[in-house]
């Protein structure tokens, strides 16, 4: 018990890693359960953020180089591109099917 209190009082690498692990599993949960395609996309963004926290945390605590930061920037760039494309696809699907529920969209073409 004393160990746990001591652990909680000194934020270190493990705290950030556990935070990112929880964020990751929440994101997976959103991807698996949500019916709305936009909510699935939000889950993907949460997962990407969790991975980014890991990169930056290891860059801060394990190495002194900034390679993790650069990788995090590339992840953010790809997340932006992915969000733009995915939302364009979702809008197009909405125009064709009049719904964005992922379990009702089961045809490539009418």
């Amino acid at each position: 018990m004393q160990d746990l209190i001591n652990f909680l009082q000194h934020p270190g690498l493990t705290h950030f890693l556990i935070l990112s692990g929880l964020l990751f599993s929440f994101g997976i949960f959103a991807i698996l359960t949500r019916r709305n395609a936009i909510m699935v996309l939000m889950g993907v963004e949460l997962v990407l953020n969790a991975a980014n926290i890991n990169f930056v945390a290891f860059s801060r605590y394990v190495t002194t180089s900034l390679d993790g930061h650069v990788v995090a920037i590339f992840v953010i760039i790809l997340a932006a591109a992915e969000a733009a494309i995915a939302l364009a696809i979702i809008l197009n699907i909405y125009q064709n099917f009049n719904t964005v529920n992922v379990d009702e969209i089961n045809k490539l073409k009418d």
Partner: protein
Amino acid sequence: MELYTIIFYFFTVITLGSTCIVVFSRNIVRAAFALLFAFFGVAGIYIFLLADFIAVTQLLIYVGGIMVLILFSVMLTSHQINVDAKTGVIQTLPAILISACIGGGLVWVFWITDWKVNSQLPIVETTAPKIGEMLLTKYLLPFEVASVILLVALIGAAMIARREKKV
């Protein structure tokens, strides 16, 4: 209890609390706005990790760009905003099992591993000049590829989202 610890838990609670709202709220507009606060919390976490440039980038791109995109598409795809803004859930039980296994496994591994932590604190300075230097030397090729990817994504998104001409 140091101030550092208190602020760390403040940002952690903001991040995880709004993530819970994102995941469990049935109102999609509320979930989208909670995601905004989750991104803010993650930006605070980046500042704790001495990553000032990443934190600002997070605010600019996620909060300023991706959130606006998501909110736009939420508004555009829910036809009666008061009725259909709610979104259902599917496969709750297997999803809880899978994500609890993933989350529990990750936390367990993070907990038991003896990380080789570098004890000396890096010299606190702004990271932007160093990152810019690395982007133009060591990571020049990925940097160029990323710019091409952004261009392709821009054109592709405009192509896909454009309304088809009625023939």
